[in-house]
């Protein structure tokens, strides 16, 4: 039977961008509003899963040539790195700091080292979810 996925694939192309944008928004807005690294990562991986549903595993691997196990390792390094970074400034482990900066495009912005920790959470969540899905999807 010939498959015809035109409608699903076309809508997926638009919807994936919306989901990824919204997940990035949720990730960065996590400090002041509900959200953060965990659900941001889950939403990003759900966008990738939508791509997996509309296309097949090989195509998605060609679009996103990411080793998800490596992504987990990088995320853990981010989390541990922000923790040990505090030790160099004579503060206890996992002490965070923030300061106000005048960025060229964003203006007066407060930058917090907790964002780096959240980036670690984000990467680990994407890596773990995609590893689980791909491992189950590949096994016959």
């Amino acid at each position: 039977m010939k498959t015809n996925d035109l409608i699903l694939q076309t809508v997926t192309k638009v919807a994936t961008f919306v989901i990824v944008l919204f997940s990035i928004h949720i990730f960065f807005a996590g400090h002041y509003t509900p959200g953060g690294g965990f659900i941001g990562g889950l939403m990003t991986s759900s966008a990738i899963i939508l791509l997996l549903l509309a296309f097949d595993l090989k195509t998605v691997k060609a679009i996103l040539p990411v080793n998800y196990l490596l992504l987990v390792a990088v995320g853990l390094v981010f989390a541990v790195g922000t923790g040990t970074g505090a030790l160099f400034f004579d503060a206890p482990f996992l002490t965070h700091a923030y300061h106000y900066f005048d960025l060229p495009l964003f203006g007066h912005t407060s930058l917090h080292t907790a964002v780096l920790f959240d980036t670690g959470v984000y990467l680990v969540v994407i890596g773990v979810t995609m590893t689980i899905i791909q491992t189950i999807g590949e096994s016959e």
Partner: protein
Amino acid sequence: MNAEMISEWIAGGFILLGTVLTLLSGVGLIRLPDVYTRSHAASKSTTLGVLFILLGAFMFFWIDEGYFSIRLLLGIFFVFLTAPVAGHIICRAAYRSNVKLADRTVRDDLKKYMKAE
């Protein structure tokens, strides 16, 4: 009656319209005979109902509280984009797994194309 009250009435009207449409789609889900007509009721009127409810909430927060919620607009766009596609996919999956049409059906145009493959 000042402008704020009028805006609240308009937002309330949108939300009421949306809930009525959603209720109608629930009635359609119970009363219609087969998968295809049910998905017709479920996907169309629920989509419009959810859109009206989101629009009412958006207008309420915009006019009453002065909060322009871009997330609600994005939600309206997203539901409008994806809900009919979900109905389409469910219907096609049902047709491909040979779910029977209702007894009252008079013609089935898709049958000859599926046979030809």
